[in-house]
């Protein structure tokens, strides 16, 4: 139905290739139709819930695809932002379960909830907080780190350490944030009972809609001039500097977008799964977020989403049957992909022209083949030596 509108405008779409607006809109409409109408009709309640959970993890993956795949920032600590979003949502849900003025049931001592709980009592404040708190933290963290030209493995270690520290902080706060038990047993989501199957489908629709919106945002960022600049920063940060850009600003934008996406994924994860604990936000889950992205092809548009969904699905299927095998398999997969297939598993099938690459439309150019998106980054941290030897290692440079 929605496709007919697209085919009417065929000449224009055909001239500009698949990047024609109508074709793109059609693709998004089709994806939305399949997800929003198809999945609830075909899947059992249990399966749908599982899929919703996977979609939340895929949101984190979309952001990592932008920051790591395009921006070369190995974000090994997305658990921090995922956790912030999740905990803010969980705090809000607990407060709304407790009713006006009430405090969460797990708090045994003290009179009321702490002030930083009260911040998120109102639904509006919670939604704003889920976006703003991780976003601002990523902005501050990113600016201070990128300005000092911390990158590559150092950046990866730093971000991983931040996720580890966050998890430790949570564990230490038994009485105020649930410690290692985390927060759980939520009854309602903004007034909708969570045990009602109809509401669970609503939850699925919201999650799927958010994910599609995120893919659209990243799509636009990738095809825009900013996307080209981000790739340039990834491949030659120093060179970009001498063209008059501050690479720190370029990187921080991608980093903040990735952080916000991770936070929204975390926030939706909470009502869907029903629990958030330090186990979901520490080092191990942070690495887990990367695996799907690497497998799917980190520099592509849809690779991270499909990879994250596939890895999550494989994990849930396999870990039920062969529990310990999956862990090893996952590790092996990650190593193989990073070492031999930096373009993701899909790149093993050669240069099949696939839609969904961040292709840049060039008006008036009859670009014949698929514009190969830069997805053949040689190493994990995508950081080729800028130009020959001497540049970054001058004395006085902060490393």
């Amino acid at each position: 139905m929605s496709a007919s509108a697209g085919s009417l405008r065929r000449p224009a779409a055909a001239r500009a290739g698949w990047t024609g607006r109508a074709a793109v809109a059609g693709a998004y409409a089709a994806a939305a139709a399949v997800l929003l109408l198809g999945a609830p009709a075909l899947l059992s309640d249990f399966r749908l819930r599982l899929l919703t959970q996977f979609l939340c993890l895929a949101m984190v993956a979309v952001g990592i695809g932008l920051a790591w795949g395009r921006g070369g920032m190995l974000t090994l600590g997305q658990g921090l932002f995922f956790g912030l979003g999740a905990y803010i949502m969980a705090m809000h849900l607990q407060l709304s379960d407790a009713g006006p003025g009430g405090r969460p049931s797990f708090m045994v001592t003290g009179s009321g909830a702490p002030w930083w709980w009260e911040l998120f009592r109102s639904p509006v404040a919670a939604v704003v907080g889920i976006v703003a708190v991780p976003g601002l933290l990523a902005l501050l963290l990113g600016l201070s780190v990128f300005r000092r030209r911390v990158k590559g493995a150092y950046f990866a270690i730093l971000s991983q350490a931040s996720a580890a520290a966050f998890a430790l902080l949570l564990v230490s706060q038994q009485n105020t944030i649930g410690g290692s038990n985390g927060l759980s047993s939520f009854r309602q989501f903004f007034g909708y009972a969570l045990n009602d199957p109809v509401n669970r489908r609503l939850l699925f629709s919201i999650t799927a809609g958010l994910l599609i919106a995120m893919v659209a945002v990243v799509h636009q960022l990738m095809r825009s001039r900013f996307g080209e600049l981000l790739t340039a920063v990834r491949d030659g940060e120093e060179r970009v500097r001498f063209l008059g850009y501050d690479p720190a600003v370029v990187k921080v934008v991608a980093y903040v977008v990735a952080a916000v996406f991770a936070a929204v994924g975390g926030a939706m994860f909470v009502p869907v799964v029903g629990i958030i604990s330090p186990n979901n936000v520490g080092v191990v889950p942070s690495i887990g977020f990367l695996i799907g992205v690497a497998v799917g092809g980190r520099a592509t548009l849809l690779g991270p989403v499909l990879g994250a969904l596939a890895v999550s699905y494989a994990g849930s299927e396999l870990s039920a049957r062969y529990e310990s095998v999956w862990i090893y398999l996952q590790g092996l997969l990650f190593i193989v992909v990073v070492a031999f297939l930096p373009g993701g598993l899909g790149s093993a099938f050669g240069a099949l022209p696939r839609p969904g690459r961040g292709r840049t439309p060039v008006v008036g150019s009859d670009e014949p083949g698929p514009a190969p998106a830069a997805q053949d980054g040689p190493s994990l941290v995508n950081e080729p030596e800028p130009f020959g030897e001497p540049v970054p290692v001058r004395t006085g440079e902060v490393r």
Partner: protein
Amino acid sequence: MSRDYLEVRGLRVVFDGFVAVDGVDLTVLAGDLRFLIGPNGAGKTTLVDALTGLAPATGSVRLDGVELLGRKEHQIARAGVVRTFQTASVFEGLTVLQNLDIAAGASRSWRTLLRARTAVPEVVERAMATTGLTALRDRRAGELSHGQKQWLEIGMLLVQDATVLLLDEPVAGMSADEREQTGDLLRRVREDHVVVVVEHDMEFLREYADSVTVLAAGKVLAEGSYAQVQADPRVQEVYLGPGTADPGAGPRAAAGGT
């Protein structure tokens, strides 16, 4: 009439006690194609690094009277001092057009940045024509030949709205034909730019230099036309030497000692 000028006074660069550039004074006007030569280790590239903010330096660097020293790399580039590197450092994953478009866009607003390119900017079109890369505009820079990469690099200088162009060995590895084209291009560019070329190629130098500055051991040894410099006995001693075709061969030791 006012011409753009670059004025360097008492520039010093010290790395861990080693004085790489030792009190250099240099004035270059637009319209003058200045070549910077000197034996290996004389401080030529370090001087360019200092002018562009890459190497920390003391002294003074003024462009049309505005002090640039102490600013960050991207601020200096925006102020109008741009450079190329010895090894071509184009963005290999991006196309020729994308490379030039990025180089031309440092002053774009976020509104423009967040949109896809809908038309090729005129400066980019012109730079592609000047450097002969129009036919290759959708080719990934990584697939270009060595010479083409250098041309793209020069094209990236041209599209930046710059006043001072610093080129570090632009014709290294080019064929005779390519060198000639590059030289003609530089001649055209110097009309309205301050152009400083670091070069080892004596043939190229003799052919195209309007003026030459000779550096040795971080200091300016001589300055003048090619003939004047060549006639200077001190220059002959450290560098040009009778029959020395290979400038890197002899004088390295002399230049290294400080």
